[in-house]
């Protein structure tokens, strides 16, 4: 069954009436005649009425309908009478359905220019919006926390326990791996340098101070930002999409108390614990490298103990608390402000991770400067 290519011929009638005789098979696999050519030739005529004649038409499918619709819209836009003759059964009906509703003229959407994100005014307004959202969120959160303290909160203990479990024990594997490796990296880096002075033994000091004050807590926080912060954003974003947050609001429950507070408290409780765990494993990791370089484990431990003070531990734990709040805030804020589509939920998760890592680095630097000034 070979098909003949679709074609048309334009026949002039009297008083500006033209008939458009269609022939051939207007089906998928055939190339439609060029519509622009047809309009070019129509534009040169004093067209008042166009009749489409389908008497010579072969097979047809949506391809014909798409062509007919364009003819119809062309006539509609120019006040030309459009009618049809001998079109196959069905096409008339379909055309009637397709033209029953007038085309909607969508207002031009603002198209974002390429690199438009780098436009300074846009950048500034984006930042100010970000700050406003964050401040609003912090305000709501403070109220919710105050209610929790006064015992009038809708926060549920079961939620808190669940989140603790998700953030804590479930994260042991990845935290163990990263902190042992970071301890090893620290020790290796330090040992290579210290060897030049014959002071390899101080590797222990380096690892202990490095892990306790800086790397243990920072690596834990980065892992938690990627793992837990993103999960919070995705959970809350999906709840936004499913109208769960609307349901919570209309029940008279504050989503802050019900959703955000238990998540944040869980992180506040779990982060310091994970940090201690990470510190411990990091120091063990450093010991492994030190042992490889000829420092006996007992030597490493005794040397390490000389620098192990409560100050270093508490510096790490203070950071852990601050980071926990920041990660939970970035994650929950992204989720609560998420749009209502799957794409928006993905964006919220990305946003949560990016902002929490930025927060972490900035906060870490600020805390370090502060502590240095305070001689802690």
């Amino acid at each position: 069954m070979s098909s003949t290519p679709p074609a048309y011929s334009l026949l002039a009638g009297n008083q500006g009436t033209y008939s458009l005789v269609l022939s051939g098979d207007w089906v998928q696999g055939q190339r439609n005649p060029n519509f622009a050519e047809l309009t070019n030739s129509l534009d040169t005529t004093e067209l008042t009425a166009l009749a489409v004649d389908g008497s010579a038409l072969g097979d047809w499918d949506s391809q014909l309908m798409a062509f007919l619709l364009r003819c119809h819209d062309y006539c509609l836009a120019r006040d030309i009478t459009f009618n049809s003759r001998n079109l196959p059964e069905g096409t008339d009906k379909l055309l009637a359905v397709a033209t029953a509703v007038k085309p909607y003229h969508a207002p031009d959407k603002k198209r974002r220019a390429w690199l438009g994100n780098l436009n300074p005014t846009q950048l500034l307004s984006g930042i100010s919006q970000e700050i406003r959202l964050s401040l609003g969120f912090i305000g709501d959160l403070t109220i919710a926390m105050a209610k929790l303290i006064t015992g009038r909160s809708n926060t549920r203990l079961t939620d808190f326990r669940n989140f603790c479990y998700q953030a804590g024990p479930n994260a042991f594997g990845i935290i163990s791996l990263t902190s042992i490796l970071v301890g090893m990296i620290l020790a290796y880096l330090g040992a290579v340098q210290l060897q030049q002075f014959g002071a390899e033994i101080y590797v222990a000091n380096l690892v202990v101070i490095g892990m306790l004050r800086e790397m243990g807590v920072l690596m834990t926080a980065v892992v938690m930002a990627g793992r837990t912060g993103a999960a919070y954003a995705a959970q809350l974003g999906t709840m936004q999409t499913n109208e769960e947050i609307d349901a919570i609001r209309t029940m008279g429950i504050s989503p802050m108390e019900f959703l955000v507070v238990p998540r944040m408290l869980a992180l506040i409780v779990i982060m310091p614990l994970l940090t201690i765990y990470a510190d411990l494993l990091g120091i063990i990791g450093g010991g492994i490298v030190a042992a490889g370089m000829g420092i006996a484990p007992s030597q490493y431990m005794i040397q390490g103990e000389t620098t192990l003070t409560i100050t270093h531990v508490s510096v790490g734990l203070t950071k852990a608390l601050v980071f926990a709040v920041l990660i939970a805030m970035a994650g929950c804020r992204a989720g609560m402000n998420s749009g209502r589509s799957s794409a928006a939920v993905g964006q919220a998760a990305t946003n949560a991770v990016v902002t929490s890592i930025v927060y972490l680095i900035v906060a870490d630097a600020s805390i370090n400067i502060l502590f240095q000034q305070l001689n802690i």
Partner: protein
Amino acid sequence: MSALKADVALIEVRAVTMAYGANVIQRNLNFAVNRGDIFVIMGGSGCGKSTLLKHMLGLIAPSEGDIFYSGTSFYQASEKERDDMRQRWGITYQSGGLFSAMTLAQNVRLPLELYTGYAASEMDDIIAYKLALVGLAGYQSYYPSEISGGMRKRAALARAIALDPEILFFDEPSAGLDPISSSLLDDLIVQIKESMGATVVMVTHELPSIFSIANNSVYLDNISKTMIEYGNPVDLREHSDKAVVRQFLTRSTALEGEINER
């Protein structure tokens, strides 16, 4: 071969049992959908209507039995044959199933790009036509999240008919629509079905839709966990000897005594 196939039903569900593990949802389903039918799968909430549709679409394999398209088993077929079958289907899901990261035009364009050789400008024309058919002309650049629920249903229909399918599957097409939009959607389904010569399989419990457009149906029962009626819904309403089916189709609650006798 083709002569033989002419009198084979377009879709045949043979001895299908659907179960999640040990939890049987429906057992021993046997029915056929003929070419040109508007076939309705009905039954109370939770009886497995949508699950049956998912089985027919090859999304979940039946625990027992098989489903045949024009006499060819779907579940015995090779992946290539299944793809050929799938290309002849158009499906709208309960919540639309539109890709939220794509505009309406891109949603309709995707199947065209995958399965046809149209040039870009021709595709634009076809997309404009399909959207116009469902009353969404001019909404090409909108994202699903920017339009209303009823419009989303229609946009999903536009995507489903992108390839001029042989069989159209609908999962609760008019759920959540007002009566006017719902009857317009019914009209649209009938128009599209008649002018394209498609067969329609739909899951619904909207009685007006069932009586105004369906010509064949199957009733899945919640309690006995199998189909208890099969036939034209208007006939079933008048003459079914199953009280529960008459009750369902007349929307009455007065027959409870009879149901208990069943």
